[in-house]
């Protein structure tokens, strides 16, 4: 009998090695490590906590079934988040509830920008009216929410977002610009109230 008495936690590489042997322990580790970040990411994009849950569950199952497609020289998290974000965007494209399409994202900035010195995020940080912020997020298209969550929630650079979404950097830059300005527009009533 071999009876070792060691305690050890898996790291991502060990977990992936387990998954390649179809050992569920590896997946259990990855779920414990990434489920909340992934779920919250999908939730921001879909604005539907149940759908986000389904997407993240499906993404983990894909990891288990397609682990051979994962390039082990690259960080697991980036590969996994790419699956989650792309699946969330795809799922939303199947829903007819998107309030604004991509064309509407291209409203000329001069029409919507509030004063530069008005800072909507100061109001956000007070958390006094999250409902307004929720509406602001709801008013963004899926693609804009995707760049927002990648930039502000997951702290990805524009280059990383570009690679993750397979879109040119200029497109990502434009979406981020538009998304920020849309949020400013949505928050303008609060800004004006504060200024008054």
């Amino acid at each position, binding site marked *: 009998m071999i009876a070792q008495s060691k305690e050890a936690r898996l790291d991502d590489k060990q977990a992936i090695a387990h998954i390649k042997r179809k050992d569920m322990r590896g997946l259990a580790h990855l779920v414990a490590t990434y489920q909340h970040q992934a779920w919250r990411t999908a939730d921001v994009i879909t604005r539907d906590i149940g759908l986000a*849950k389904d997407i993240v*569950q*499906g993404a983990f199952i894909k990891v288990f079934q397609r682990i051979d497609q994962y390039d082990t020289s690259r960080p697991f998290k980036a590969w996994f988040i790419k699956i989650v974000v792309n699946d969330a965007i795809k799922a939303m494209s199947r829903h007819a509830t998107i309030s604004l399409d991509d064309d509407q994202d291209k409203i000329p900035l001069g029409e919507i920008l509030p004063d530069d010195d008005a800072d909507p*995020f100061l109001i956000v940080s007070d958390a006094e009216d999250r409902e307004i912020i929720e509406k602001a997020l709801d008013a963004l298209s899926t693609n804009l929410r995707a760049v927002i*969550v990648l930039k502000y929630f997951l702290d990805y650079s524009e280059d990383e977002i570009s690679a993750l979404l397979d879109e040119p950097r200029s497109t990502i830059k434009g979406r981020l610009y538009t998304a920020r300005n849309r949020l400013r527009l949505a928050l303008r009533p609060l800004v004006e109230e504060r200024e008054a």
Partner: protein
Amino acid sequence: MSDDQRFTQWLQDYEAERMPDDMNLWNAIESQIRPVRRTTVLPRVGWLVAVLMIIMTTAGVYALDQIINNQAGDKGMNAVTEQGKVAELYITNEFGGEFDLDVTLQTVYVDSNRAFVAISAAGVAPANAPINLYMNPHVILPNGDELPFLTFGGGGGGGGGGGGDEEITLVPFEVSMVPNFDASIIETTDAILPLVIKVELAYVNILDAEQGMIFLGETQFEVEVPFNQGVTLTPNQSVTVGNNELRLQKVVIAPSLTRLEMCYGEPAHPEGNVVDSSMPWQPVVSLSVNGEVVLDGVSVYLSQLDYNPETQCYDYNVTEALDSYTGDWSLSVDYLGYQLIPPTDELQAAFDAAGVSTIALPGGGFMIDPEVSDETSMVKFQEASLAIYQQWQEKIEGAWTFTFTVPEA
């Protein structure tokens, strides 16, 4: 603080409030990876479940034989058990450690298609620190090769030990499992097969899941067991129905399981609420031997390891004992099915309509009322589940019929 920092902070706070850290997807993910007979392959047992079992069973130990005998869905496993082909070993290794574990290798069975082992572990854990204990068994051949897991069939479950006295701080528990392994890599004509069964042990603190899974160690058994040789046939027949050509390349008939190697260009996946878009089409087969119906519309199971993308060949597994059927086989793929995932609200409505009590969950979704566990309710639940999943299944009708002869042994 910059705008970006403020917005990052807000998003994190907002999502943390919307989705608490104690929400856990693991059980749902695990059950989807083992979707077909997940309840019969249970490599872990929740401590809380074990405690419930203590209340229900004064004996306190859940006999593994009972578990095996309750595997009505795995007829091949049942057949070889009834035929006395399963080696009864009951070897106990004293593992010790913080949970004072004993690990017992109860039974082992191996044929040309699959192996299964029955393993249990018993120990004690603090009553105020419940755990999930995980066993991860490995079956290792004399040449060092390891049998891969099969993700269908098998048996398992778990049970509780004694306890119940509030003065006692350590409560005994017992867990057990009967995992399946793919034995198709075994190349031997010997009647006896030496094996090493290695069991890794790990646990999760239920009250502190953030710790993740903690590895305890491993124990191993060296055994010699009978090897049940199968029959291999190579019909290599192609049949075309509509635009779909199926080729039955190879058939391996072993006592506990028959394996069909079928090759086809998989049809496009249907649109719909598909959570896992990589799920393949699922053949449903029938079998007549010498004109007698043996199988009628049974699902065959695809091991996740058994698809070769280059040859487009799948190994499908029929968990039936077909080794006694010799003569003229007529094997038919009646249709290819594809399971879509019903929307949650429709699923809940179907359960409600069938009289199955459900509880809505915060944030969406629902669960079956755990208070309702009588036999009538379970039957209702199974019937309602079957009905709605059939309603949400796409089909490509066949039939693709292959005929060949299985000789007497």
